[in-house]
């Protein structure tokens, strides 16, 4: 299988995986927390406008936030209960953001959804269900799915790629979803193929998840093709294999141009978890208000894959999993290569949280950085063929706006450069600073 596995040709790194901490653990459903903090911007775009007031009664799955301007995705109550406050909550990127706090009614009957036949629905009706359900790309970026699935007519999309690479170390969320719900993913892919009016779908999965590859292959055989061509493509284990541009290049050989989008080369990419959410939205009419997250790292007592309500505070998850260990040194929302370090356990889970890592001192590196010694390792590691070393030096020299000539906006901050840098230079930080100062 190794010889057949696909990958991208330039750059990439091999961080230690640490997936064995949680890969074998089945998803457990976390008991309802006492309160949830549902952020009103969990997506790419402007925050939603709250539709509920303080003391209002809300039901699980009820719409509580609506898109009123620009891009966005609806927000739903994840529990049945009473609105305690419409205020703000800690946000992993924006520090604080508008949110709705709901006090859970522990005696409420959980919502239930039954599968319905979606095949008779029109394309518009399916897209409307996806939009109503507030589906966003839950693999990371949070781009509204109903927008992504309606590319402009001039884009000639011919291929759907499902992203099951999960190249970030520690994270096993997608892995568990693929193992536990393969039929829903396959059904979801058929929904997307119908929307796009195409037949070809590739599911890209890194080789370290051979069980998921087998399960999905079997599931494809079992459910039948219905005229669709769905296949599993094993991928080489290499970070950032799951990056959209690298994944597209690995599977189709096409290169998405700078400032371009996948549909420019005829491809739409969806994360496997998002695909399952699309299935639930279309076939079950279920909004996106709960998700599987990996809680891992040596700093948590009991690493696990858990199904949580969106808005669950990390503090509640930590106490459910037995607390943190005394040598905890860093808490990261997301993967260790691209996640955000946080300082506050009141942070709630959002639609795009794929994991929370509790890292100890020996898992992270806090050494101070030195001068660039021009080893050139970052040039070899960069999957975009950029020169992180030079961009860092320009930023340090106080000339960040001049980095545009080196293609700073093509950088998607995968962190390979800073991962390999022997001088421990914070190259991603330099590049983020450069992007703020430089003009496109």
């Amino acid at each position, binding site marked *: 299988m190794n010889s057949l596995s696909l990958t991208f040709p330039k750059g990439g790194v091999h961080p230690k995986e640490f997936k064995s901490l949680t890969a074998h653990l089945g998803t457990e459903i976390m008991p309802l927390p006492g309160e949830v903090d549902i952020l009103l911007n969990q997506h790419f775009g402007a925050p939603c406008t709250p539709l509920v007031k303080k003391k209002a009664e809300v039901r699980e799955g009820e719409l509580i936030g609506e898109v009123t301007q620009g891009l966005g995705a609806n927000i739903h109550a994840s529990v049945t209960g009473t609105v305690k406050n419409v205020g703000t909550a800690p946000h992993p990127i924006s520090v604080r953001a508008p949110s709705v706090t709901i006090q859970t009614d522990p005696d409420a009957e959980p919502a239930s959804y039954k599968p319905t036949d979606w095949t008779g629905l029109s394309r518009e009706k399916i897209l409307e269900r996806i939009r109503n359900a507030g589906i966003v790309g839950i693999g990371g970026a949070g781009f509204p799915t109903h927008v992504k699935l309606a590319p402009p007519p001039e884009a000639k999309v011919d291929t759907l790629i499902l992203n099951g690479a999960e190249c970030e170390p520690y994270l096993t969320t997608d892995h568990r979803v693929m193992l536990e719900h393969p039929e829903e993913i396959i059904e979801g892919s058929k929904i997307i193929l119908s929307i796009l009016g195409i037949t070809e779908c590739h599911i890209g999965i890194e080789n370290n998840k051979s069980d998921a590859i087998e399960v999905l292959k079997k599931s494809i055989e079992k459910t039948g093709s219905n005229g669709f061509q769905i296949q599993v493509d094993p991928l080489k284990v290499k970070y950032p294999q799951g990056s959209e541009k690298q994944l597209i290049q690995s599977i189709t050989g096409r290169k998405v141009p700078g400032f371009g989008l996948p549909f420019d080369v005829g491809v739409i990419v969806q994360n496997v978890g998002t695909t399952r959410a699309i299935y639930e939205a279309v076939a079950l009419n279920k909004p996106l208000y709960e998700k599987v997250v990996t809680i891992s790292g040596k700093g948590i007592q009991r690493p696990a894959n858990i199904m949580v309500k969106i808005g669950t505070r990390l503090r509640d998850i930590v106490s459910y999993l037995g607390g943190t260990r005394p040598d905890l040194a860093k808490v990261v929302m997301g993967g260790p290569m691209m996640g955000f370090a946080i300082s506050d356990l009141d942070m709630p889970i959002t639609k795009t949280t794929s994991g929370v890592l509790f890292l100890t001192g020996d898992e992270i590196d806090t050494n101070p950085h030195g001068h660039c010694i021009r080893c050139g390792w970052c040039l070899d590691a960069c*999957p975009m063929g950029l020169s992180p070393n030079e961009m860092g030096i320009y930023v340090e020299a106080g000339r960040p706006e001049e980095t545009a000539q080196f293609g700073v906006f*093509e950088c998607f901050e995968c*962190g390979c450069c800073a991962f390999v840098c022997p001088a421990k230079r914070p190259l991603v930080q330099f590049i983020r600073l450069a992007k703020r100062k430089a003009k496109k």
Partner: protein
Amino acid sequence: MEENGLTETGSRLWAVSVSPHVKSGESVEKIMWTVVGCLVPPLILSIFLFGFQTLLITLISVGSCVATEAISQRLLHQPVTIKDGSAVITGMLLAYIIPPGVPYWMPILGAVMSIYVAKHLLGGIGFNIFNPALIGRAFLVATFPVAMTSAWLAPIRHGSIFKYMGSGVDAVSTATPLFVLKHYGISGVIEKFGSLSSIYGSFFVGWRPGCIGETSTLLLLLGGLYLIYKGYITWHIPVSMIVSVAFLTWVFGGDKLFTGQPLLAILSGGIVLGAFFMATDYVTSPTQKTAKLLFGACIGALTVLIRLKGGYPEGVCYAILLMNPLAPAFEQWFRPKRFAPQKGGIK
């Protein structure tokens, strides 16, 4: 900037910094000390070949480089970084490229020139334009030309084991093979060292007069290959430099075209030491692979030019020094190939 900043929650302090949160585990210190380790075997051999003064000269050179680094950084109000091992490498390399019979104060002068002038006055690690150890040697050659070009020792003391390596003659010249070649031609080399086929074996192991650490192609090659295996250096500069020296020597090194002795050229000077341990210095060489190939080839060409037409029998030192300041230019000429910079990049 919040790098390495700490934040307080309850009684604990957590680090918060920009991603990535995990690193490869490599560090400047690890690279430097690995290079130091790779340079130790030639030093041990040199003690067998030329006696304990080679160890003493190396220790004096390393000690003065480290001391100069500490004093320079204090004077220039920089953090003292002697533990990173880079001054130790400079000290070893400086000792390795001076003759074993020089007076003991000479490496001290070279060290001050290398570390204070060529490294720290130019901004310290990462900013030096020239290879510091080579600047030290160039300074010594210019200032004490007699000692630096005649203080050779014959590798006979404790060296009898190498007679088994196949050298046909017992009496070994104290002049270096390259000196003999320059002044007496190939017949002189054969007369003083033995027939070509018989001397390659002992030259390869290191049994010949020369600078302290340059003689053993075998041990330098082992060290260099280990650095390539570790990924600390790439093959591009050493290979292109050695190939270029061999090819140009073969073409122009003989009485007629295409009659030179390429193997002798590689085994009898500082080519291998220079190719693996000096021309590959990160700071003073280009980072792009194609640039590295051309850079190495240019060093090889300049080496052969100096050897054949210049005033010195050996040219590696000046060839590398002449190419060092061109590294940034190579960087501009050879840009990395970007993924797909413009729209419409379907391939």
